[in-house]
């Protein structure tokens, strides 16, 4: 079956430092990977959508300078949160799919706490 492994599951970083999270797709080719953040109020925000062989598209309020993403092949993607501050807290989720109009599978999320 299709699985997405995401790690770490949780991380605590000091304000102003950076942390990296990774996702690995197993059982399918992750042509597209989307990174989301779920706020403490449970709303989902799309950070960026990465499609192999295309430029990464960032949503409004999110930038490559703050959330650089790597998607080097069809099984792996990573995202870094640079200079994390309190407003960056939340649950970060990667969702991967094999192509347009196919099911998206999510990793278990990385819960970021900033102290």
């Amino acid at each position: 079956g299709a699985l997405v492994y995401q790690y770490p599951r949780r991380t605590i970083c000091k304000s102003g430092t950076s942390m990296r999270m990774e996702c690995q797709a197993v059982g399918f080719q992750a042509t597209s990977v989307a990174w989301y953040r779920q706020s403490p109020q449970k709303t989902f925000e799309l950070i960026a959508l990465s499609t192999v062989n295309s430029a990464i598209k960032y949503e409004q309020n999110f930038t490559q300078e703050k959330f650089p993403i790597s998607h080097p092949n069809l099984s792996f993607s990573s995202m870094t949160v640079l200079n994390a501050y309190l407003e960056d807290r939340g649950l970060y989720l990667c969702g991967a799919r094999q192509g347009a109009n196919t099911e998206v599978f999510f990793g278990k999320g990385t819960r970021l706490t900033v102290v």
Partner: protein
Amino acid sequence: GDKVKQSPSALSLQEGTNSALRCNFSIAATTVQWFLQNPRGSLINLFYLVPGTKENGRLKSAFDSKESYSTLHIRDAQLEDSGTYFCAAELSNNAGAKLTFGGGTRLTVRP
């Protein structure tokens, strides 16, 4: 405004009863997914729908693209059904096949 409006936001059910969750789309949707988020935050895939209906055990989901809504029916609710349910749609105005999430329904099943 909300492109994917999910209702109700919270629901309390007696064990053994039935209920339905709903998502309305203000923009035409091409596909819909339903997820259950467990207390640890993991999103569990329940259904992936192009227009039509699917059933899996005590769960049944429908997606009507013409009327722009989707439903999730829970039959004979069990304690383990408790959690937060999300619908997420691929909207036709999207460039790049991203999912837009509803606000979630927090379901509590009481013994």
